[in-house]
């Protein structure tokens, strides 16, 4: 058996294609890496895997047959974490899963299953935080716009939530870090990639782009945030535990402009 590093295009289908090839060719992967993150390794062969829809569909079915809907979500969530090495973690769990007939998702004493559950939990938390901390700012052309920089790639996960909630307004959430966004046009949600003006900023204060009344609503919200605090119960530690500082840039209630 040869030792192989697999390189794929970074998509979920691409990753599943890798899994397919691993079993088809009976190889021992040492790493599974998205294009651009490869490292020189003179001891292993390097294979570039082309995403193949019929391969990935077969693997997908194999996984879904062996897990509950919830268990499958954990695989998807963990993949979207984009953590270095997560592909190998997933492979190890899948390999364990394919090697037994049990539903392994509850086998928390297996280190691979536990690891994936833990990563999925982190991604789930980030998803929930984005659903909470996104702040829309109304633009001059009546688009509710939000800029985010999530730790993990959660845009695909939060789209359904925002679609069912804000069905009667146009909105866009743009991931500044990954350079793509989701846009709802009153009918459907699309993934889009656009070039944002440099000075658009998180705050929604720039009146070149944002509705004149927008900043007033941010001020009202900030005012509310201050008024609702009970001073004699102050608990800064708890506050920062719930609202970690790295998210403050999204929040109108923390904005220096409001």
């Amino acid at each position, binding site marked *: 058996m040869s030792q192989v590093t697999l390189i794929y295009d970074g998509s979920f289908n691409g990753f599943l294609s890798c899994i397919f090839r691993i079993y088809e060719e009976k190889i021992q992967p040492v790493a599974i890496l998205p294009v651009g993150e490869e490292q020189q390794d003179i001891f292993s062969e390097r294979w570039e895997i082309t995403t193949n829809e019929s391969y990935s569909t077969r693997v997908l079915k194999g996984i879904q047959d062996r897990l509950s809907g919830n268990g499958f979500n954990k695989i998807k969530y963990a993949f979207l974490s984009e953590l270095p090495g997560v592909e190998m973690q997933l492979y190890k769990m899948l390999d364990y899963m394919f090697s037994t007939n*049990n539903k*392994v998702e*509850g*086998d*928390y*004493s*297996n*280190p691979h299953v*536990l690891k994936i559950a833990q990563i999925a939990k982190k991604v789930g938390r980030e998803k*929930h935080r984005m*659903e*909470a*901390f*996104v*702040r*829309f*700012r*109304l633009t001059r052309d009546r688009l*509710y716009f*939000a800029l985010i920089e999530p730790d993990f790639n959660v845009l695909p996960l939060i789209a359904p*939530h925002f679609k*069912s*909630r*804000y*069905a*009667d*307004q146009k909105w866009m959430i743009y991931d500044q870090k990954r350079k793509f966004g989701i846009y709802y046009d009153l009918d459907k949600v699309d993934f889009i990639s656009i070039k944002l003006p440099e000075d658009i900023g998180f705050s929604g204060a720039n009146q070149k782009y944002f509705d004149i*009344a927008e900043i*007033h*609503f941010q*001020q*009202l*919200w900030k*005012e*509310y*945030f201050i*008024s*609702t*605090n*009970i*001073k*004699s*119960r*102050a*608990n*800064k*530690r*708890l*506050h920062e*535990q*719930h*609202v970690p500082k790295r998210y403050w840039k999204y*929040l*109108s*209630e923390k904005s220096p402009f409001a």
Partner: protein
Amino acid sequence: MNFERIKEKLNILADAAKYDVSCSSSGSKRKNTSKGLGDSSGMGICHTYTQDGRCVSLLKILLTNHCIFDCAYCVTRKSNDIKRAAFKVQEVVDLTISFYRRNYIEGLFLSSGIFKDPDYTMERLIQVAKKLREEENFNGYIHLKSIPGASDELMREAGLYADRLSVNIEVPTKSGLKLLAPDKKHEDFMKPMEKVKNEIIQYKQESKLIKSTPKYAPAGQSTQMIVGATGESDRDIMYSSAFFYKKYNMKRVYYSGYVPVSNDPRLPALGSQVPMLRENRLYQTDWLMRFYGFDIRELLNENFQNLDMEIDPKLSWALRNRHLFPVDINRVEKQLLLRVPGIGLKSVNKILQARKFRKLNWEHLKKIGISMNRAKYFITCDSREKELREYSSENLKQLILKNSSGKFRKDLSPQLSLF
């Protein structure tokens, strides 16, 4: 919108509403089916947290802080010399919608001081909710306060627009109420609760037969009690609470550590410390009662009237019931597993699933995430090394305390915080 004027009202009326601790936005089933605005079918979301660490999920305001009553514990009481203000119905509607569209909130929590009479006040609250639902096609969460003494007809109407209704009992005992809120009658609190309970039961029956039956308060009702204003024991408070859960099918009972708002001799003086630790222990007890299968009489009774502040109520119970332990983590039934100190609901489920695959040992349990410092004295597992168990309960308590670093430790041992 006159932003300056609204800002001033918002200041006054949010400040006055903040002593209501409920901010839950979960448990409703209102879906956005007509391409309107909002959806409250999922789990609740805290959109931010106040600087005292409380969840901010709803726009929580009073319609007005004018009030004809003079309840000693209340900041809005008639005799208190404070700025008064009142929102117009449309102003609350506009504010709610503008905040909701920006993803600041899950919905509205509207309460009010009582002006003119209870029915007049309740009508205004209903108007806001009705406008939101019918004119704005709003499916977000609405929590309305039931005004004590409001008529049955109005309570019926309120539930057609609101997701949750609540009336705060505030003082856990009848005698306390007489002392602090002499204008209010105990029955005035119970009447709306009873009505709401019956309407919910009726809705559940009818909706089984006729699917289009209009929803009635799908997120149920809740209430709140002030803790530490009068001399009630923890047992008094939790027995009242158990009564409300049972008698009125409450979704939640909230406990609010009393924040001094006046220099009334009947109450703790201004500047007294808010009993936050006690509040925390009461919530833990509430959880044990609702999710861990405890009967309240096991946790608090004639011989044990107040909770131990140093340790959590489950550990405290376990130390009083050493004869039930240790349990074998690989065999014990769920009911008793739930009672092991240091093992929460999520860990219980993980253990139940994981032990189907192999016998669990200390290493597994640690990785699953149970709190070993407390749990290890109450369980055995598939490991040879075992914890010695000849400690007396008191020694064991001290040992656990010594090895833990709880968030309230500084409140308990003032001598350590000198330097």
